[in-house]
């Protein structure tokens, strides 16, 4: 199976094939023998040659991070044959959804439909765990639609507003 992997902004081409209990791995053209044991959900014990690593997968919503020892890496994995992921990868333009980064309560809306906003301008204030957090616009544009009301309870990932 072929993957495009991005680790902290750096791209890798990875080809993984399993044979006789081992993984034959080609990373950016380099051949590696990998012995992998999933010791429990989201925790891999790896041997690459005789070097041993414990790798943990942190997943919260759509964010993936990998911990190698105590170093944390942001990770993205794409299957280059998947059309969908290719389309998504190039998605920089058009309307942007502003989502709640955590579950909480909308205590204040700072903009209205149609308002012009700068990148980084506050759009809404969400309170969770006794902290009020200003949710900011990811881009300059105008508010296409506000999808929540003041006082509403939201979950992580809920769309608060759309900026176009």
């Amino acid at each position: 199976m072929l993957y495009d992997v991005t680790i902290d902004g750096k791209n890798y081409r990875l080809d993984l094939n399993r044979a006789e209990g081992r993984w034959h791995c080609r990373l950016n053209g380099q051949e590696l023998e990998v012995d992998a044991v999933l010791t429990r959900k989201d925790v891999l014990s790896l041997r690459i040659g005789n070097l041993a690593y414990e790798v943990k997968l942190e997943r919260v919503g759509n964010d993936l991070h990998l911990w190698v020892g105590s170093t944390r890496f942001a990770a993205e994995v794409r299957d280059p044959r998947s059309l969908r992921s290719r389309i998504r990868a190039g998605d920089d333009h058009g309307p942007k959804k502003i989502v709640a980064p955590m579950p909480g309560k909308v205590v204040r809306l700072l903009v209205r439909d149609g308002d012009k906003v700068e990148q980084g301008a506050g759009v809404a204030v969400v309170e969770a765990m006794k902290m009020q957090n200003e949710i900011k616009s990811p881009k300059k544009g105008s508010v296409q639609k506000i999808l929540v009301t003041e006082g509403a309870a939201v979950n992580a990932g809920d769309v608060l507003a759309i900026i176009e």
Partner: protein
Amino acid sequence: MFKKILIANRGEIAVRVLRACHEMGIVAVVVYSDVDRAALHVRKADEAYPIGPAAASESYLNISKILDVARRSGADAIHPGYGFLSENAKFAQACADAGVKFIGPTAAAMNAMGSKTRARQAMEKAGVPFVPGTSRGLESFVEARQVAERIGYPVMLKAAAGGGGKGMRLVQTPEELKSSLEAARSEAERSFGDSEVYIEKAIINPRHVEMQVLADEHGNTVYLGERECSLQRRHQKVMEEAPSPVVDPEMRRRMGEVAVRVAQAAEYTNAGTVEFLVDQQKNFYFLEMNTRLQVEHPVTELITGLDLVHLQIRIAAGEKLPFAQKDVHIRGHAIECRIYAEDPDNNYFPSPGKITLLLAPSGPGIRRDSGMYEGWTVPIDYDPLLAKLIGYGTDRDQAISRLTRALSEYFVGGIKTNISLFRRILRDPDFRAAKLDTGFLDRMLKRSEDKAVDAKAAEVAAIAAGLFAEISASTAGASNDEGGRGTISEFSSHWKSASRREALR
């Protein structure tokens, strides 16, 4: 000694107190709100009573509900933990009136510390050094402006009932005063049900050093050494250590003696903490007294060998302090990390949610006081403190290396935590050189992280990312309703232990 203690708190501190009860052969009664039925303190308790909705004001802050549980359970004492009702004099008084021992100071001592005016005069006579400012709540914006003009900007606004940085604002210029005062007041009202705010001259880049005191009900008061609490973010402590790297035995003795005088001026009993600001010339100023057990009490326990919760309970039961000042010795060094449910990539926003995976560190010199477990959902309604990880060593360097090692073993999945922050702090050259002040962390976070790029580890991460995708694909394949394969995270967690091992082997 008490037969039964009611713990009027939740989270890691409720578990901490519960453990002390069990160690002392005391029955532990807990209370819980609707969202805390599955919380760790309820699991570990001997008796547990529901006290209503998630909102703290209707449960953990509700005096009559808690006293009702004390009555129904037959508890002879109440331990308030920290936060919630721990520094509420009305609650301490209500306990006394109900014939239940409050494990902490008397309402009168709390009031003396809370209201400040009279206690402050007594303390000034006793030679306690103060930062210039008002000793009582501000009546109006006009008064705030006058005082600020007199003592000079920058000034600090603080909630009279406060603690933990809530209701606190730094004001640099006269223009900011009005909005800051309003913000501090409303935050104080929300957090403590009391909007009283006072004003002080702000000392720039101070250290925050606090002295632990312990007083029995027979007139004996001792100090147990200081804690350095300068590592704060938004006035919220993040990491504490004991002893403070800047305090030598002579300074410790002077600070300790001042702290004892502060406690005695208020006729203080039980455990308390006297907070000082230390300026760059190592002058120290009395800041406030926290009339409760502190979050960071474990670092003091590790370097003194004392158990503060046991001692709190014994003092409340009327026992004399079992040692004198000359018997208190400081040995080694301890550092505590506060593990919060916060997202390090998103400005440390709270990150409540379900803990899907928990790997906990252990080994030499490591103590972990935790209120979480795997499978538990961290509620959105309370403080984001999940656990405390404390490293102890013969000296500061060993404490740092043990903590660094333990942090690499610590992993919380499903929610985000600030664990990666501590690794960064522990590596920081200024931290290692103990050049600390209360602005240290905010400055460090403003610098972009100089990640020493570990190319080898990044390659390992890349390989692991692919392997995790393979596992997801093979285990999710049977029930795959997605059209194409995108990212790993699109695969829901249909993990079956047998099939996933098969998939790898």
